[in-house]
């Protein structure tokens, strides 16, 4: 079925009236939206505004990919959720909110972690992809999958006060294909060099701004109005309120769609991003329940908490506070004659701290608290505050 065959009920015509009366958009633009299938990858900070606006705008079919559940600490920026949804799968919570917003939109839920095994299958039935994930492996995965399947990828990314937007792999009316993420950034940063967002933080309004720009570009790609942000890369500095738009081009050495492509199928993106190496030499681990056992049995050990002071204030379980960024300079506070358990929020920063201490000071007595303080709260002391 082509968009010309789309028909609207009287209620829909009334609802979309403010679109239909825009010169150059009209009923044709609205029909293209209703006919379109859009996949939103990540329903968090960027996905929230993108989903709300695209649903409100009348996109006919919206797929949502997310494996996470709603947490109270999401609500600072993920405006699609509310306190009634805490603990529930994000895709289901999002659907409840969006169905109440627009009964004319159909939602397809993918309550899963997107990976090389399922990405092509999930993406293949959609017309446009909007990538709002939070890590480099998934960024490259989505990029390559959209190249292999020949889909436009509306990209947006944020960190602290910085936002980035572009439209990748877009074919214009002349049939010219625009650049993609690999043309812009051939390889990702090694793990550890760029702080993750859980450590670095983000100003809550920023994903609202950048996710809305992403929704705007999705609508332009679908309807063909204006000039999509293809071949251009938009950056926004919220601190100084400055934005820049750079020109970007396709590169001959792009391994997926350059002159001599070497990647013809999806690869192992965690390995590509250097994350597999971290897993090869795992640190010793202790579960929250085992830690609790040590505590009740009065075993002699030291607990080190590598989170930030602001997090420690929210909740702590008796560990000595040494933030990850100061771990090496405080190595003398860490005993080497008894077992030491290192903890953070979810177990990633504590792993980094252990690796740093083992490499620099040859500690052999360090245990990572698996799942961090969140796991401890879940399994041992549910009355403590989660964040």
């Amino acid at each position, binding site marked *: 079925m082509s968009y010309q065959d789309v028909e609207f009920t009287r209620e829909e015509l009334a609802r979309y009236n403010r679109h239909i009366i825009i010169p150059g958009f009209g009923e044709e633009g609205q029909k293209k939206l209703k006919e379109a299938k859009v996949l939103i990858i990540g329903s*968090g900070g960027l996905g929230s505004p993108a989903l709300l606006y695209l649903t409100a705008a009348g996109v006919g079919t919206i797929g949502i990919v997310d494996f996470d559940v709603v947490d109270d600490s999401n609500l600072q920026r993920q405006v699609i959720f509310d306190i009634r949804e805490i603990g529930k799968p994000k895709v289901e919570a999002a659907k409840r909110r969006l169905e109440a917003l627009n009964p004319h939109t159909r939602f397809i839920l993918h309550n899963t972690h997107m990976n090389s095994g399922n990405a092509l299958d999930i993406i293949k039935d959609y017309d446009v992809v909007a990538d709002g994930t939070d890590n480099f492996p998934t960024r490259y995965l989505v990029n390559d999958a959209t190249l292999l399947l020949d889909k436009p990828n509306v990209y947006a990314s944020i960190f*602290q006060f910085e936002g980035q937007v572009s439209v990748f792999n877009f074919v214009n009316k002349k049939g010219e294909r625009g650049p993609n993420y690999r043309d812009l950034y051939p390889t990702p940063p090694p793990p550890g*060099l760029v702080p993750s967002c*859980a450590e670095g933080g983000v100003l809550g309004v920023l994903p609202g701004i950048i996710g809305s720009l992403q929704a705007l570009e999705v609508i332009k790609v679908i309807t063909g109005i204006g000039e999509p942000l293809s071949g251009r890369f938009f950056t926004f500095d919220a601190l100084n309120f400055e934005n820049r738009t750079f*020109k*970007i081009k396709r590169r001959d050495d792009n391994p997926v769609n350059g002159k001599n492509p070497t990647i013809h199928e999806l690869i192992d993106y965690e390995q590509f991003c250097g994350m597999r190496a971290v897993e090869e030499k795992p640190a010793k681990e202790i579960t929250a329940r085992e830690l609790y056992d040590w505590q009740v049995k009065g075993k002699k050990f030291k607990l080190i908490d590598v989170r930030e002071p602001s997090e420690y204030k929210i909740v702590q379980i008796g560990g000595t506070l040494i933030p990850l960024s100061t771990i090496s300079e405080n190595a003398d506070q860490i005993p080497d004659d008894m077992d030491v358990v290192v903890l953070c929020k979810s177990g990633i920063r504590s792993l980094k701290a252990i690796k740093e201490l083992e490499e620099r000071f040859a500690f052999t007595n360090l245990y990572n608290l698996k799942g961090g303080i969140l796991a401890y709260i879940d399994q041992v002391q549910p009355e403590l505050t989660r964040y």
Partner: protein
Amino acid sequence: MATVIIPTPLRKFTNQTAKVNIEASTVGEVIDRITLDFPELKKHILDQQGIIRSFVNIFAGDEDIRDLQKEKTPVTNSTVISIVPAIAGGSF
């Protein structure tokens, strides 16, 4: 002299300075000078061989220096150099 725009994620290495004026005649000289003035910035822009990292893009005006003369791209008093690193946040 060129003006260098430091992106917000790297400002912790420049004492929160957003714009730095550098006396130089090429982009390569600009990078050398700024990493000398702010040593902590170096590992975030250059690899151990001193080559611009592939997850950092340098733009002169709105043009990617890879489309100009790379590090040899000349700069003038009015050139604005932007450092744009890859960031990956979104759904967290």
